[in-house]
């Protein structure tokens, strides 16, 4: 579904991403792991269109999306959760989610003439997912006033409501308490059951090894290993570079 070929990105003199290539299989959860600063988020930024590569190409279902803009890539079906919280902080949780559903809201005249009432189907979809992640009582709270865990869940919900073929999640359980973490893990496995395709960055190893089908290991901008979790666990190079013991 998603293929990156020989992707390279330099900042100043430093190569953040070095000739990386991999393919994401549809319906599977793929995890990108590696030490801090190894290039994982940079790869995410290249795929989403926030950064442009110095070399290499990115294909979504065989369409070359390397030079596309961020919003165009999103509309082609890539939905991304950021590492840093990016909720619309002055809007409510519910308003945050409604915005994700479609782009009718960007049509000025339609909205002025009242032709964009929030249909019942939209309301239900939002309500459904809010309940699913367990924050529906806070739906009318201003996003800035939610707790960290609630914010993360709301943002995850928003990312999923955004119509997509591929979900890119950057540290979905970063900084959340164990209960929330369990909830998110279950949520991701539910998504997998629905045959959704997920690309994930995580530092929490037990979590990652539990949910992922394929693990790609990156160190200093190079991909040093790819494979199912049991293979990676035994890979010597990976163990040295990252997992410690």
């Amino acid at each position, binding site marked *: 579904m998603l293929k990156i070929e020989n992707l390279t990105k330099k900042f100043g003199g430093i190569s953040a991403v070095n000739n990386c290539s991999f393919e994401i299989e549809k319906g599977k959860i793929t995890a990108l792991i590696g030490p801090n600063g190894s290039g994982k988020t940079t790869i995410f930024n290249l795929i989403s269109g926030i950064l442009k590569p110095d070399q290499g190409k990115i294909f979504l279902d065989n369409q070359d999306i390397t030079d596309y803009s*961020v*919003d165009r890539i999103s509309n082609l079906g890539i939905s*991304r959760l950021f590492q840093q919280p990016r909720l619309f902080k002055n*809007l409510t949780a519910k308003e945050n989610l409604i*915005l994700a559903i479609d782009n009718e*809201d960007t049509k000025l005249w339609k*909205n002025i003439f009242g032709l964009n009432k929030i249909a019942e189907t939209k309301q239900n979809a939002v309500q459904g997912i809010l309940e699913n992640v367990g924050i529906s009582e806070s739906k009318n709270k201003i996003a800035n006033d939610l707790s960290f865990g609630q914010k993360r869940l709301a943002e995850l919900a928003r990312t999923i409501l955004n119509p997509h073929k591929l979900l890119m999640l950057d540290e979905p359980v970063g900084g959340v308490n164990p209960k929330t973490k369990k909830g998110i893990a279950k949520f991701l496995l539910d998504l997998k059951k629905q045959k959704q395709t997920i690309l994930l960055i995580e530092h929490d190893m037990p979590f990652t090894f539990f949910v992922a089908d394929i693990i790609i290991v990156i160190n200093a901008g190079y991909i040093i290993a790819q494979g199912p979790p049991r293979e990676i666990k035994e890979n010597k190079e990976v163990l040295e570079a990252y997992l410690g013991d």
Partner: protein
Amino acid sequence: MIDAYFIHLLILIGIYLILAISLQLSLGYSGLLNLGHIAFFGIGAYVSAILSLHGVSFLLSVLIAGLMSGLFGWLLSIPTNKLKGDYLAVTTLGFSFVAYAIFQNWTEVTRGSFGLPGIPRPNIFGVDFSENTSFLILVIIFVLISYFFIRRICNSQFGKVLEATRDDELAAKSLGKNTLKLKSISLAVSAFFAGVAGSLFASYITFIDPSSFTFLNLIPVLLIVIIGGLASLRGTILATIIIILLPEPLRFIGLPSSILGPARQIIFALMLILIIYFKPRGFFGRVDLE
């Protein structure tokens, strides 16, 4: 005597209200620190004045003036799209300097410092608005139309997506929103209404010159938007009334006009500084100034 003066104040409140809510759309809702907003006021005033002086009917002049301002708003949005915060502020400020320079120097059209006198009061379908009382009614109609139009935008989902762009443009883009288009529309609509306010201003005072369109003249408008509170339309109404009426008592103390002018500016400048420090959300603001 008092009545006439009171009507004059109401007319000013009306004109400034349109100007302020148009700035509220681009600043409060879209997060665009457009310090050049007064240029759109000026463009509207000059276009409408020139058209009226050449016999074009009032309503048509206002429409064209608004569209011209709106066009410049849209044009300004494109190169400034990637600019944020103070870079955007300073660039839009620069735009207002360029506009002022053109008002001042394109003397074949604007007559520069001599200004354009004798701008006719409206005559719409035979109804004459030379009397201030009737002009006030016209202003009220324009205020109502402008207010309800902008309110419609702000309360709709379009308004929500503008606010999303303001709160986190990258996140909005990641949800597939074309933020360049959104910001352009916001600036264009905002400029359009500023142009309409300018047309009313030109027709009311019947004389315009470049000195009404310097960035100094933006300060009360900016103050209104901040004091009323960002992203709050009713806050803007309240703040407009307060800011227009506030310097008026000075007139009654009998201060000479050479003191009145700077005194007014000092009050506004101090208020701006104080509100930024003590109550950056203003009365009804839903958003912090950033």
